[in-house]
């Protein structure tokens, strides 16, 4: 079936039905071209990253071809935890609410040692954010809603059953060879973005590498569907050395449809084939849930983890994003979440370059910005993995000391690392930021993602992030100077005039005084701020942020 003919309700069906969706092969007119058809942007891979990128570009008016060798959503459940920032990005892409409606929202986590709760933490302890710290949602649902959205946009041409078999990079573009059920063809891309996952055939075809560490540990992931509403609340529960799985860690998470994700650390000596057998999994699950628990095994797999990244994400006109560029261990849910941030970083830059509003130097800045973010993710997830699986006797000693102290002492709770959960990277050293010349306090430094805040507009509730423009936004606390109206492609948002900061949270989070202005990029990162902006300073920051001044 032509995917565009799939009825909308098919995307809203049960997990089993959604996973059974089969996107048919449709022959493209490009396959009958005598010479390779030309396309401005080609994305390889219809995973969460490729789809998010394609939607962002199409919403900006670009035409995008997405090639995927498969014809189905991701199999089984891989990612389940989608972070606040990812939801905010998906809000911009028109799918955030869909994800939140289906997903299980959570902010609370609990940490146990043996059979005792050590402490609990709240990832979003303050009011005044539209989105929760996390939702849990099976990756196939997230992909289904992204595909559904992509099919609504005329600019996106997703070609299932289109396997990229060769990539030839050249000045000004790349030539792709593609296999389909009825033969091979070629297309020519002005820009090529590889979102083709951890094994990235594109990376291999170009002779590039991803380097890093492989962790000598194995984890069993079991998704179980409980017969009754479970007694566990909607929280992240993490055990160190529980009686039901001694000497190892266990993680429990709730997903939609009364499915629970249980993640058992197995150690390096475990035999993955044996551990995958239901007769070995079921007793482990019963040990956790109780001997009488009624459940079905929905999905199980055994994983090892690696922390890897490419040296450079931009290679001329070929750009890598998501797992193809970097891979992290899952403690902290940083894989898909950071990949979606890659996509949003790249989308507006490609759009600006394709529209001739900026030079290719702007796309080149995607490299250092997201390589830095990848390092931060890798650092956090490596540290979490090392804490959970101590590599030496002394690291176990200190790990256990921290756990022991955490029971009573707040300071030690901050040392306990069961996965620092995904937060957006602050791009401290971004070449697109203009350093502060005025004094500010707080976290909203140039390079940070703008924090959300509740506002009202004409008496109706709204949110700061929703009021930002598709391109740059100049936030001004109070009346904006007249010259701001002539800034090209900049939405001016006057807080206190266009919108009301009725709880004063925006002013507090941004350390704003009357007259304070923030210049916000299309990807909602702050790039400059002033106590009293001048036209020259704002224009210069804009030139900087679009790489015109690099």
């Amino acid at each position, binding site marked *: 079936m032509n995917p565009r003919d799939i009825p909308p309700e098919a995307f809203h069906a049960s997990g089993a039905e959604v996973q059974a969706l089969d996107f048919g092969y449709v022959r493209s007119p490009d396959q009958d071209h005598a010479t390779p058809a030309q396309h401005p942007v080609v994305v390889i891979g219809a995973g969460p990253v490729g789809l998010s990128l394609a939607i962002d570009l199409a919403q900006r008016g670009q035409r995008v071809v997405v090639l995927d060798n498969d014809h189905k959503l991701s199999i089984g459940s891989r990612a389940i935890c989608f972070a606040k920032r990812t939801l905010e990005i998906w809000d911009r892409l028109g799918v955030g609410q869909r994800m939140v409606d289906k997903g299980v929202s959570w902010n609370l986590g609990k940490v146990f040692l043996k059979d005792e709760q050590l402490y609990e933490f709240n990832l979003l302890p303050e009011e005044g954010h539209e989105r929760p*710290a996390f939702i849990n949602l099976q990756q196939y649902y997230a992909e289904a809603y992204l595909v559904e959205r992509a099919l609504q946009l005329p600019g996106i041409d997703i070609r299932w059953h289109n396997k990229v078999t060769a990539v030839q990079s050249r000045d000004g573009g790349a030539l792709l060879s593609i296999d389909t059920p009825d033969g091979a063809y070629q297309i020519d891309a002005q820009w090529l973005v590889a979102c083709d996952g951890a094994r990235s055939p594109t990376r291999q075809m170009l002779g590039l590498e991803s380097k890093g560490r492989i962790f000598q540990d194995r984890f069993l992931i079991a998704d179980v569907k409980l017969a009754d509403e479970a007694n566990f609340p909607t929280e992240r529960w993490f055990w160190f050395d529980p009686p039901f799985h001694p000497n190892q860690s266990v993680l429990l998470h709730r997903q939609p449809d009364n499915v629970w994700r249980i993640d058992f650390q197995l150690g390096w000596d475990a035999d993955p084939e044996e551990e995958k057998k239901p007769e070995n999994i079921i007793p482990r699950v019963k040990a956790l849930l109780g001997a009488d628990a009624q459940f079905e095994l929905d999905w199980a797999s055994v994983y090892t983890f690696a922390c890897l990244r490419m040296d450079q994400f931009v290679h001329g006109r070929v750009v890598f994003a998501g797992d193809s560029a970097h891979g992290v261990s899952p403690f902290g849910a940083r894989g898909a979440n950071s990949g979606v941030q890659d996509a949003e970083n790249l989308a507006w830059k490609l759009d600006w370059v394709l529209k001739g509003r900026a030079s290719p130097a702007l796309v080149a800045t995607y490299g250092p910005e997201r390589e830095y973010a990848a*390092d931060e993710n890798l650092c956090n997830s490596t540290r979490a993995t090392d804490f959970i699986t101590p590599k030496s006797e002394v690291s176990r000693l200190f790990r256990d000391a921290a756990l022991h102290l955490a029971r009573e002492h707040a300071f030690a709770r901050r040392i306990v690392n069961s996965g620092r959960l995904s937060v957006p990277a602050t791009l401290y050293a971004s070449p697109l930021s203009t350093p502060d010349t005025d004094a500010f306090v707080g*976290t909203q430094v140039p390079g940070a993602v703008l924090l959300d805040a509740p506002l009202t507009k004409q008496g109706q509730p709204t949110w700061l992030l929703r009021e930002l423009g598709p391109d740059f936004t100049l936030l001004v606390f109070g009346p904006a100077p007249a010259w701001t109206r002539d800034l090209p492609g900049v939405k001016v948002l006057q807080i206190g005039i266009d919108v009301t900061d009725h709880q004063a949270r925006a002013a507090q989070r941004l350390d704003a005084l009357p007259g304070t202005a923030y210049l916000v990029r299309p990807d909602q990162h702050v790039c400059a701020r002033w106590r009293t902006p001048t036209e020259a300073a704002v224009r210069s920051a804009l030139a900087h942020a679009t790489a015109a001044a690099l």
Partner: protein
Amino acid sequence: MLNTQPNLQACDDFYEALIATHQGLSTPESHAMNARLVLLLANHIGDQATLQHALQLARGSAVPTADRRTTPAITPVVPTHAVAA
């Protein structure tokens, strides 16, 4: 900077108390207690440069850097909304 000039008010008393605190503990229990003590005192000191200096002096040779490709220039600062208790 780490203060290595005499600073303990009653050094003999402290030393005696330290040894006494270990009394009756097995060697593994003593090691565990020492580890907790290091964490408690480190939190009290708080300052990263001072602690780094102490780590260096305690080891007596260069402290190897963590096995990571790059150390972020700044320890990632999480937004206030994500600071776990």
